């Protein structure tokens, strides 16, 4: 052991300690809670309304409104990374020597204290027991190493030396994940795109910064379809998209939720949808005074005259969500009645409630009979070159955890000694760096097999 009092050594020791890992993980876990309690990525007004100006100032100082990108949170991650790297370098050389030793030395003393050590006497000669034991051991644990001692013979076998590397694989996977996340946030983007049926776009807008991002191609939405369950909940929605390059149609593909389009490193996801304003609709105008019913096809923005020249009706527009006393009544047509007696009222016709206008109890009642249902598709457009790194990290993490937790470095030793006339004393013991239970089991099974074959 070298002296550890220089400043650099002390820093090294600090970052190599498991205690630091625990402290960092505690801090990461504790502070992560903040972001699930305090609203994230909202506008300043929202914070002031929720918490007041004073608290908002504090939130801003500590970046708590986007805390998973805050400098101090990222610093914790950096500390964790340095900790992992230093810790691994510090221990790897020792582990390496255990995994790849120059020559495997068998030290019977190390097996003497094993709790699972079992001993019995066989009435066979040592040679015969040794032959049997070699076979049994090779079948259970692999290559057998032999060592002759004054007292007798030692047979030794082991497996899973490499499993000591598992923990380093787990730690490397964490670094890989964070590297992938870094690459993704530096070179990738996430944006939203709203396309009406028939529309094209080559620019999307970043979801956070709202800045335009030019795509390396143009997207056209040919068609959007939505299917509903009988409960009214959406069953499936899909868009037919065409990719255009240099004004040439490149290819057309249908995208659904969970089935995105991936092209040139850009991913296009089906995220949402909504109804667009129809160009024209069929209205029915009922005059309760003279009992007339007239049907008109009106263009958006168009005007028709009411029965008996009593005034005009204007189709003013369409909203995807109409708010009525705090309830969202869904899509609604907006119109205006302008009667000759000087009354001028706006009327709302929610498509889900065709007779809604009767509640107004006026002379004229308007109903929407039919219209061209058209939708816009809500797309999420992303690019993330970090994903391959993150997925590699995922794979390494699972493999590493599996090896670390469920594979162990096991060694088993069988000792044979002459015991009296023609009989042999046999002992079996095993050691493992973890998962002692399974080693004990191996020892038990070996003893049983040895007793069986040696006629005990």
């Amino acid at each position, binding site marked *: 052991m070298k002296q550890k009092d220089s400043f650099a050594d002390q820093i090294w020791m600090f970052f190599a300690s*498991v*205690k630091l*890992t*625990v402290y960092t*993980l*505690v801090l*990461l*876990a504790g502070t*992560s*809670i903040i*972001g*699930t*309690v305090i609203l*994230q990525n909202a506008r300043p007004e929202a914070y002031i309304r929720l918490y007041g100006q004073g608290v908002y100032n504090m939130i801003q100082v500590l970046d708590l409104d986007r805390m*998973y990108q805050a400098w101090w949170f990222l610093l914790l991650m950096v500390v964790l990374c340095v900790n992992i790297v230093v810790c691994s370098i510090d221990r790897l050389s020792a582990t390496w020597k255990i995994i790849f030793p120059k020559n495997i030395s068998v030290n019977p003393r190390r097996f003497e204290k094993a709790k699972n050590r079992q001993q019995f006497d066989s009435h066979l000669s040592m040679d015969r027991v040794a032959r049997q034991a070699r076979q049994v051991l090779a079948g259970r644990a692999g290559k057998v190493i032999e060592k002759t001692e004054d007292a007798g013979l030692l047979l030794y076998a082991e497996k899973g030396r490499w499993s000591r590397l598992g923990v380093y694989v787990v730690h490397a996977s964490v670094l890989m994940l964070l590297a992938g*996340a870094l690459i993704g946030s530096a070179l990738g983007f*996430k944006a939203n795109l709203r396309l009406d049926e028939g529309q094209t776009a080559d620019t999307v807008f970043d979801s956070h910064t709202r800045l335009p991002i030019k795509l390396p191609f143009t997207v056209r939405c040919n068609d959007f379809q939505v299917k509903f*369950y009988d*409960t009214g*909940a*959406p*069953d*499936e*929605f899909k868009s037919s998209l065409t990719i255009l390059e240099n004004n040439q149609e490149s290819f057309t593909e249908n995208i*659904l*939720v*969970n*089935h*995105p389009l991936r092209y040139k490193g850009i*991913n296009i*996801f*089906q*995220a949402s949808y909504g109804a667009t304003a129809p160009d024209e609709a069929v209205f029915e105008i009922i005059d309760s005074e003279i009992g007339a019913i007239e049907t008109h096809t009106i263009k958006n923005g168009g005007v028709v005259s009411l029965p008996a020249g009593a005034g005009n009706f204007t189709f003013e527009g369409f909203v995807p969500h109409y708010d009525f006393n705090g309830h969202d009544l869904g899509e609604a047509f907006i119109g205006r009645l302008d009667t000759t007696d000087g009354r001028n009222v706006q009327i709302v016709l929610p498509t889900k409630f065709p007779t809604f206008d009767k509640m107004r109890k006026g002379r004229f009642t308007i109903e929407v009979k039919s219209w061209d249902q058209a939708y816009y598709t809500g797309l*999420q*457009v*992303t690019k*993330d070159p970090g*994903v391959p790194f*993150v*997925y590699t990290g*995922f794979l390494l*993490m*699972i493999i590493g*955890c*599996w090896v670390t*937790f*469920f594979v162990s470095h096991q060694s088993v030793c069988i000792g044979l000694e002459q015991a009296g006339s023609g009989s042999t004393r046999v002992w079996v013991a095993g050691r493992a760096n973890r998962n*002692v*239970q399974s080693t004990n089991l191996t020892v038990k099974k070996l003893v049983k097999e040895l007793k069986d074959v040696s006629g005990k």
Partner: protein
Amino acid sequence: MNSSLLLSAATFIYALASVFYIGSFSFKKQAVARFGFWVIVIGLVANTGGILLRWMESYHMGYGHAPFSNMYESLVFFSWTAAALYVFVEFKYKESIIGVFVSPLIFLGIAYASFDPSITSKIMPLIPALKSNWLIAHVITCFLGYAGFALAFGFSFMYFIKPKDPGTKRLFAKLPDWDTIDELTYQMIVFGFLFLTIGIITGSVWANSAWGKYWSWDPKETWSLITWFIYAIFLHLRLIRGWYGKNLALVSIIGFIGVLFTYFGVNFLLSGLHSYG
């Protein structure tokens, strides 16, 4: 026979098993606990049948999906994984008395699903985002993780009630020896940690295929990460001298509180992308 009938039967069978385990503990009759084990096995069979039947019923209704899509279904599945893991553990370790801390958890899970009026047991159609094979992989792995942590939580209690003096005639003296308790708690946490890890990963891969983002700091995601951190802390603390027994058991209990908050708390208190447990 329909699924809800079979699942309420499972609820009562699990209740019976808890009665046997606790009874065996109070009256110091080991044989009663062995009986409790077989009752749990019967409960597990009924639970399995109920889940499979519900799966088939959803196809008859035309919605056709694995029964992992809402709070009711996830609670039923939680009890199933916890019961299955427990049966395996008792079978392997042959310590029948440890069921006393686990059987009530299995019962409470499925009972909560049936008796809380705010949890609907109706079979509902799947929203488009849930229509993915990742749903099955994600839910099964997460719940295997939760089951591991639930069992570890049950076993951790033994640290607090087993008397130190082995000669005592007190009620809790029959509990397994310290090495076995330590081994059991550790094995369950290792099992839970591996599956929670795979659960978070399958969830991320799924999110990437549905929304184009493998991680978005949604409250449920964040809380699952917090839980993962707590158990990672547990695994690292074992490497530090002086951390064993009660201290570690306490960390295991804190970890399970994390699991419970990820599972229930987030749904009730925080909003997010997860529509189910």
